[in-house]
């Protein structure tokens, strides 16, 4: 059933407009800009063509099956439009308008009318108060941001479900800078019908999706989510950015437990129970979703660090091992044999002790050797590698070496710098090597692999 949402053959835009300032125009423009190759049916009672598309007076005039109807009308007008979609037997209707329950009692009444309009029918609503969906694989975007001012990511392995439309689009704009992709984005908005659970079910089955990123401010049904995610989390990694952490939320309680039980303390406990990785920013959400999509979980907490810059090794070790301003993992104690082999491969003033420092003399070939030795050392559970392109003996081939060791122990890569750094990060992304532009993000992403491994391990 969800195939028709994620890979639609036809999309109707109810409220299509010639006016470039109207959403009914932007949605059409986005579909065009994306190169959507299914059929597009703009609906407007007064126009004949918009953006070269033939316009229809009503959805009921279209002699074709419609997979998705995007309604860009006001809240009031949307209700009649939904009713017509029900008559037309449209499976998925995206109601973009705001002005429903998020605005108060009056809006809530309108929302109830929407719910009643689809009750007992085959029509499902996404939203209202949503920017809709973005599916790069099918070239579908119902986003209301201007295509010339927004970058959106390409096809990828992260399924993204967001309660906020704008934050979702902005985050995708940010990650597209490094070519990180998504397998689909759905903004559930006011979530009167289609819920985060049903969409997670889809992403669990979708073979392109390797991890699920969630931005939620509330859970439609917390207990149901718990029961569902107990199994779901075993199948694919889930990362959650939960908005509204500081809402007081605790009930008027006469006992201690009730008084301390804020919504966030319960969410925190639940995510730990479910092995869901918690992100606290939009950047962390995709950092963790990426590492979990590309890399295997860590089976222990002993990490080897390889760098050509001593200070980078020192700060990484601090961040890696400290409980305060750090993640509390361990630096691996290398076997003597490993150290001896490394010593022979690197310059005498380098360090064969973990963190391993190849120094500015470090070459692509040395990385290859060191990574081989670390992969053979059973005292090492995971490897953090810094690929720093600023020195002479490192060349583009280092990415090939890193790609080769993606088959080995869990490895996370740090690539620091501006212009060259960015180019190399994009190159790493192309090969699905989890790489990050700074120490903190590199270490924290390794920690996400640790949490996943710990959850799956015992």
């Amino acid at each position: 059933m969800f195939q028709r949402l994620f890979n639609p053959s036809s999309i109707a835009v109810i409220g299509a407009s010639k006016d470039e300032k109207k959403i009914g125009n932007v949605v059409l423009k986005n579909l065009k800009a994306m190169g959507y190759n299914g059929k597009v049916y703009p609906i407007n009672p007064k126009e004949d063509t918009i953006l070269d598309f033939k316009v229809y007076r009503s959805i009921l005039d279209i002699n074709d099956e419609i997979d998705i109807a995007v309604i860009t009308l006001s809240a009031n007008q949307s209700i009649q439009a939904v009713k017509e979609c029900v008559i037309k037997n449209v499976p998925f209707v995206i109601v973009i308008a705001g002005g429903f329950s998020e605005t108060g009692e009056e809006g809530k009444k309108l929302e109830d009318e929407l719910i009643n309009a689809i009750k007992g029918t085959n029509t499902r609503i996404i939203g209202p108060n949503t920017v809709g969906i973005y599916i790069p694989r099918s070239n579908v975007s119902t986003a209301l941001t201007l295509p010339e001012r927004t970058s959106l990511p390409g096809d990828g392995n992260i399924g993204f479900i967001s309660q906020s439309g704008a934050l979702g689009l902005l985050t995708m704009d940010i990650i597209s800078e490094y070519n990180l992709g998504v397998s689909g984005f759905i903004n559930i908005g006011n979530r009167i019908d289609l819920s985060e659970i049903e969409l997670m079910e889809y992403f669990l089955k979708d073979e392109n999706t390797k991890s699920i990123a969630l931005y939620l401010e509330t859970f439609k049904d917390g207990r149901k989510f718990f029961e569902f995610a107990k199994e779901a989390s075993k199948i694919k990694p889930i990362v959650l950015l939960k908005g509204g952490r500081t809402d007081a939320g605790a009930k008027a309680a006469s006992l201690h437990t009730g008084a301390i039980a804020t919504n966030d303390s319960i969410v925190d406990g639940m995510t730990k129970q479910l092995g869901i990785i918690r992100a606290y920013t939009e950047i962390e959400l995709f950092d963790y979703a990426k590492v979990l999509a590309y890399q295997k979980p860590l089976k222990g907490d002993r990490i080897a660090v390889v760098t050509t810059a001593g200070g980078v090794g020192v700060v990484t070790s601090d961040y890696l091992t400290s409980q305060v301003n750090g993640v509390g993992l361990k630096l691996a104690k290398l076997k003597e044999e490993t150290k001896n082999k490394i010593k022979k491969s690197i310059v005498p003033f380098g360090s064969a002790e973990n963190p391993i420092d190849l120094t500015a003399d470090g070459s692509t070939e040395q990385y290859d050797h060191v990574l081989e030795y670390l992969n053979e050392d059973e005292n090492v559970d995971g490897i953090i590698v810094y690929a720093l392109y600023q020195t002479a003996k490192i060349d583009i081939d280092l990415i090939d070496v890193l790609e080769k060791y993606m088959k080995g122990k869990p490895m996370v890569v740090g690539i620091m710098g501006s212009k060259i750094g960015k180019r190399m990060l994009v190159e790493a992304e192309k090969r699905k090597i989890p790489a990050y532009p700074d120490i903190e993000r590199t270490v924290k992403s390794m920690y996400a692999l640790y949490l996943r491994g710990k959850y799956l391990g015992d």
Partner: protein
Amino acid sequence: MEIVEEYDVKQMLKKYGINVPDSMLIKDLPERLDIEFPVVLKVSDKNILHKSDVGGVVINIKNMEELKEKFNEMKNKFPNSKFLIEKMVKPGIELIIGSTYDKNFGQTIMLGIGGIFVELYKDVSFRLIPISEKDAYSMIDDLKGKKLFEGFRNYKLKKEDVVSLLLKVSQIVSDLKNVDQLDLNPIIFNEDGYFVVDAKLILK
């Protein structure tokens, strides 16, 4: 909302194999006591949830004479109530285990560093009921005060005791089905083992 009397809550805990101090529920003072001194005297009344706030608790009563005196004072204050006499528990480390019903997430369980400062330090960890043994161990790991389990001065908490308690409380709340709030606070861990010193239960 229905408040369950402390004595009944503790009898139920006992049935689930949770340690509570020796106690007896009385209307008038008996001739002799089957409980060793020192004891604690508490008012036991459905309408009084926070006993110490109304002067309904006297601790460290050392002999029969003292008990008679305190009992008479208490009886004057609460003429229509029943009373609970309990063996006084030696000091130790105080933990809290509780449960609360959340309308979105359902039954939850909490472990924390207990006593009267619970709400000040808020060193607590929540999970949704039912919990597994693994969940119980990870709740201990969540606490900033988890060092108490490695030994601190003369105190050392046994993880197994706390895990077993958590699993039992999870079971109780599942079995009862209608718990709104439950507080076992403090649970005192001393050289004799552990004892639930105060237990409060409110049903939906």
